[in-house]
């Protein structure tokens, strides 16, 4: 189960993901990130309430980063919890996507 909430603030579209990002949730996450990138605002994906991410979830995140690249907007992943951070570290996804602690605004 994945719950998405969005808010615009100071030129950023903040997409907050809560719950799990597995194969069942990929479409929800991809659509939310693509729609956020299409607004033309910079996109921050807040993962502070995301408990789990699988390989399919990682692909959705990359898909969102690709959408931001297409729309030429900045994309940043914020505050992953330790379990999700470990997946990021082992996969090396930080080479393609900026990951930071805390929101940009």
């Amino acid at each position, binding site marked *: 189960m994945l719950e998405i909430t969005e808010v615009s603030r100071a030129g950023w579209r903040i997409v907050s993901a809560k719950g799990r990002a597995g194969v*069942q949730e990929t479409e929800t996450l991809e659509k939310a990130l693509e729609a956020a990138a299409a607004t033309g605002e910079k996109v921050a994906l807040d993962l502070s309430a995301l408990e789990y991410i699988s*390989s*399919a979830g990682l*692909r959705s995140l990359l898909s969102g980063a*690709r959408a931001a690249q297409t729309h030429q907007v900045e994309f940043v992943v914020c505050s992953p919890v330790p379990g999700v951070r470990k*997946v990021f570290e082992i996969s090396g996804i930080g*080479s*393609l*996507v900026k990951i930071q602690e805390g929101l940009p605004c």
Partner: protein
Amino acid sequence: MLSMLEEVVLLAVDEKTGKLRSTRPVGTGFAMAGAVFFDLALGKRIDTELEKVLLVSNQPTGVPVQDNVLSEMAKHPELDTVRAWIKALAEHSEYFESAALASLIARGVLRHEISTRLWIIEVERLAVADNKQQLNVKARLAQTILTDTIPDARDIMLVSVAEASGLLEYVLSRSQLESRRDRVVMLCGLETISREVGDAIVMLNDEIRTFVARMH
């Protein structure tokens, strides 16, 4: 659209000789197993974690190779790691290869030719009947490796399978590959399936080296 398995087998077809080629035959079996797993992941039949593979749905895909693997996975729930399945599936690489070739011939991408040499010796070869697909695979590999853009998930998978099969050397020059080695390594590390394929190849190479050292 071709499957990942079909794309990598097509890439292996040498247009000049009509034979399948590889600079890393040891890795090819694991790479083909990885390709089938990627096809199942793209079809949302499986998902993977850092080590484990999850059978999400065993609803048939309509592709016999993939459906046979799904059926085996449903029969063996005790095998729950990507590594265990890659090793098990690699033993069926000849089946994967021949199924992919048959499908590529049926699609009109490849043509099976038999010619006669010295009047009596029959020589079999694979001819590329429609080179658009092979060129497309090569172009996507080159684009994914030579640029710093965020690639499509499918192209990340393709790079890792082509690398494990030793096929990148037929797409890019040695100097191009050397200059982009870090990028290839990074792309091959992104997916659990490709990390496990890479580890399985390293382990097999170690076993071969140990065996050869004992022989001497």
